[in-house]
């Protein structure tokens, strides 16, 4: 079924064609790095130096400790201190501050009494995203501070410093989450687009008829075409990872070989999917467009890269199970940030293999070598 000589002939021919086609070269080697750098800088979930006002109606040691915790957290800049809540309204309206922290008069008393000691945060909701992040940070600061205050007990208040410890992403830098995720998302798009050209090109240029007249088999054509792109895809993953570490300072804690191994299966799946589109459309323009649409939005929006899957409506959540990037994202983030190994990624690994098989099967089904 598989003749090595024919397989090699097909792969070698494909490599020659890629080498001579500027468009393919750019798509293969330039676009992934470009997208990574572009989106790596453009997308950020970090919010720094949020301007805030503090209304400290308690004026106690714990309330001052809480205020200082906000100051030293790095996420907030206290630009105003006021006596009454009404006084911050104007500041919010003018946009001089994004958030106001109101510490009620009984804050210290409640803490000492072991009761709940609520503080109030007033947020400028006009930018919902920033508002949400500011609130989340504020909560983190308040929580860490209050637990420290409690632990310190009556023995006097240490100067509390707000220190949010977030696992695996200590600097709370969203870039660490973004870059490995982006690698998964970008590779899905690039891989599918790469192969979307190959079979359509043979049909458009009439070379398919000559191929069909030779003893070359469907499997040899599919694999022979796939192998060069698989090598390109692996180079892309390597380059993206190096860029992630060197340019974005993302830690790489896991096993390089494990990433390479799982990438192979993910790429086979995505490349097979691109080939499937190519074989169905038989038109290069249509195939690239379709490959782009079929991978770009799902990989970006439904993989859990941009939006948390838990926060999606149930119907959409079910759809995400069909998005391969969803699983590969767990792989790249896990290997980069947590340094997880085979035991943790076992399930994802099996899904990658399943995706590879599905991609190949689709290409196989759609690709009819004979002319009918």
């Amino acid at each position, binding site marked *: 079924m598989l*003749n090595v*000589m*024919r397989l*090699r*002939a*097909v792969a*070698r*021919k494909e490599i*020659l*064609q890629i080498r*001579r*086609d500027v468009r393919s070269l750019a798509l293969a080697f330039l676009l992934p790095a470009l997208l990574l750098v572009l989106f790596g800088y453009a997308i950020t979930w970090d919010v720094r130096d949020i301007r805030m006002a503090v209304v400290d109606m308690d004026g106690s040691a714990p309330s001052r400790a809480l205020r200082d915790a906000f100051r030293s957290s790095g996420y907030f800049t206290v630009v105003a201190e006021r006596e009454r809540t009404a006084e911050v309204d104007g500041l919010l309206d003018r946009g001089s501050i994004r958030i106001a922290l109101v510490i009620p008069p009984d804050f210290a008393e409640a803490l000492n009494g072991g009761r709940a000691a609520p503080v109030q945060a007033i947020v400028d909701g006009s930018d919902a995203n920033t508002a949400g992040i500011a609130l989340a940070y504020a909560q983190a600061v308040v929580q860490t501070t209050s637990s420290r205050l409690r632990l310190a007990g009556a023995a006097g208040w240490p100067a509390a410093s707000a220190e949010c410890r977030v696992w695996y992403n200590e600097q709370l830098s969203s870039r660490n989450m973004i870059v490995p995720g982006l690698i998964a998302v970008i590779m899905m798009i690039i891989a599918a687009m790469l192969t979307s050209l190959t079979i359509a090109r043979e049909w458009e*240029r*009439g*070379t*398919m*008829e*000559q*191929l*069909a*007249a*030779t*003893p*070359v088999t469907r499997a040899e054509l599919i694999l022979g075409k796939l192998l060069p792109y698989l090598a390109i895809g692996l180079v892309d993953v390597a380059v993206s990872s190096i860029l992630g570490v060197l340019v974005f300072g993302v830690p790489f804690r896991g096993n390089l070989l494990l990433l390479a191994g799982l990438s192979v299966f993910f790429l086979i799946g995505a490349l097979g999917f691109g080939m499937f589109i190519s074989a169905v459309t038989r038109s290069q323009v249509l195939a690239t467009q379709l490959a782009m649409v079929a991978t770009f939005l799902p990989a970006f929006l439904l993989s859990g890269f941009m939006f948390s899957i838990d926060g999606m409506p149930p119907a959409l959540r079910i759809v995400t199970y069909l998005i391969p990037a969803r699983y590969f994202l767990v792989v790249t983030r896990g290997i980069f940030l947590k340094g997880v190994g085979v035991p943790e990624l076992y399930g994802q690994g099996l899904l990658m293999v399943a995706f590879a098989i599905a991609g190949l099967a689709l290409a196989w089904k759609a690709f009819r070598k*004979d*002319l*009918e």
Partner: protein
Amino acid sequence: MSPKPAVRIERLSKSFGAFRAVEDVSFEVHPGEVFGFLGPNGAGKTTTIKILAGLLRPTSGRGEVAGFDVMRETREIKRRIGYMSQLFSLYADLTVEENISFFAGLYGVASERRAARRDWVLSMAGLGEHRRRLTGELSLGWKQRLALGCAVLHEPPILFLDEPTSGVDPISRRNFWDLIYSLADAGTTVFVTTHYMEEAEYCNRLALMNRGRLIALDTPAGLRAAHREPILEGRENRLEMVEPSLEDVFISLVRDAGGARED
């Protein structure tokens, strides 16, 4: 005459939906002959060749190429034939040499024979000094000689050529037919379609197709002889049997068969 026909088809038909492109065609091609396949556009020549080359499945009827069934044994057939499609279909973005190596690989030419076969094709096609040029930059005449070369890399006993010289200047056409003859001399069966009447004269036997049907099959001389027409010679008012040209024969045959298809 010869032990086993190179091609034998029996009541072969091919429909595309309700449209009958080839209808009830039967003939044999003898080993080593140059078999000309003629007919106006839309006559079903390409469809028939594609069936014989294992690219299309016939709707009904039987066919054998090199002793293998066109319905079930297409893989065996493809190993033993060379095929040159009606449209140029080598890779324009590969060099001459790269196209040759690619097809040598697909046809499984043994590595120790590769270099010899490549050189043979280069010299046969007269492309020795253009071996590193991109195929797309070649003139059509060269492209078609290269396509022929790539189709015979594996030294197939049977060669199918679908309008190999269409659009090529007369000198290139002549060169191309010299190649066909040298292949035929070496024992290759050549099944060739053409539009050009002078090329038809070069064939050992001719099959004429019209509207998907075979309407004549004979040697060029035989066809002409069967269609001698009385011609009234001018001055002396005498009726004389004159040998018509092949073109005259074909035109009258096609007319008798209901005229060519209008697409």
